[in-house]
């Protein structure tokens, strides 16, 4: 059980993790043990607060400042917990759109870093976007999940193969991609391969 002086230390650790994750721009492994420790700390704090209130601690009482601090630490802990989870959700959503809406692709890369709830969240998010898309653009005229960062100057794009995606059917026929080689192709045919990292745009 944490002593009085170290209440709030766990929250600092959690904040540091969020900061590191933001600096690196990537999802770090979900820290289940730290989260659970903080949730336990909340229960302990709550018990203490109840105890003190039960003993008549209120404004003017000598222990009132100590009570106020405990309450403050509880709110801070909760805020940190929510912020930690929210920051991770933002990263997962970004990964979803970066992968062109391929939930499976994100899971392949990130599953080891995600909590069970986060996997559920990502699947729910993907389904929600799909429902929206079907309502607004059932014939996929606008290609909602394609990139929004690169208008490009024309229909063609020069790419180099990073990872072999295998033979792909394009408008100009079957392309048997070889590693390290360059190709000039219709963007629309292979944009998803660029998004998923198989091909690199030059």
């Amino acid at each position, binding site marked *: 059980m944490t002593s009085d002086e170290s209440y709030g230390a766990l929250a600092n650790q959690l904040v540091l993790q969020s900061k590191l994750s933001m600096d690196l721009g990537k999802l770090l492994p979900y820290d289940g043990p730290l989260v659970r420790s903080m949730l336990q700390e909340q229960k302990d704090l709550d018990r203490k607060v109840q105890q003190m209130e039960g003993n008549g601690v209120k404004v003017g009482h000598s222990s009132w400042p100590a009570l106020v601090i405990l309450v403050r630490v509880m709110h801070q802990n909760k805020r940190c917990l929510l912020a930690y989870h929210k920051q991770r959700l933002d990263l997962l959503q970004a990964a979803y*759109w970066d992968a062109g809406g391929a939930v499976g692709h994100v899971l392949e890369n990130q599953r080891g870093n995600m909590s069970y709830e986060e996997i559920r969240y990502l699947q729910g998010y993907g389904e929600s976007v799909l429902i929206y898309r079907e309502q607004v653009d059932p014939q996929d005229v606008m290609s909602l999940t394609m990139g929004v960062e690169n208008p490009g100057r024309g229909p063609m794009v020069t790419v180099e193969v990073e990872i072999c995606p295998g033979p792909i059917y394009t408008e100009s026929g079957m392309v048997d991609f070889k590693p390290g080689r360059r190709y000039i192709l219709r963007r629309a045919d292979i944009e998803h391969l660029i998004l998923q990292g198989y091909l690199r745009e030059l």
Partner: protein
Amino acid sequence: MSLPHTLRASVTPPELELIACQQLVDIVPLIAMEKTAFISGAYGPLRPPHKARIPLWMAVTLKQKKKCHILAPEWLTVEYLQLKLTQETTQAEFTKLPFRFAELSRVMLDVASDDLQNPDKLRSLLQDLREARQAKARAGLENLEHSALGLSNLSAMEINEIRPFFIEAMAILGRLQPGA
């Protein structure tokens, strides 16, 4: 989030370029084309060697396939830009330039410099103009004290460049003088 980070607070130069390329330019076509219905309007017919007026994006695509020459707009000449540069460096206000001159000149210099008269000189004049105007924009930032600031004659690209600084400055002012 459904918008990537880079797009949340601003517009990117490629997007500004996309919009600028909707504008019409004069070309001399090297192929023939019947009048055609595009989504943005009907263009053509193209009857070499007669001039035609088409959107810049179309002119760029044709030019890249060597199927047209692009005719410089009147403002993209050494004489005109030299005049503007002189005005710019001798008056406090921003001189009038086409709103999307930065994007338009960049595209045309990239793709059709052989159709332009003295492209290197054009580039250097445009650079000088850019610097003179940037200095004025910075000065404007220091003088930001009202709840509204008139910025007439700033171009699209320039607005985009100063955007984060000016928005931040206004936010700070707002906190200092609520209700100003």
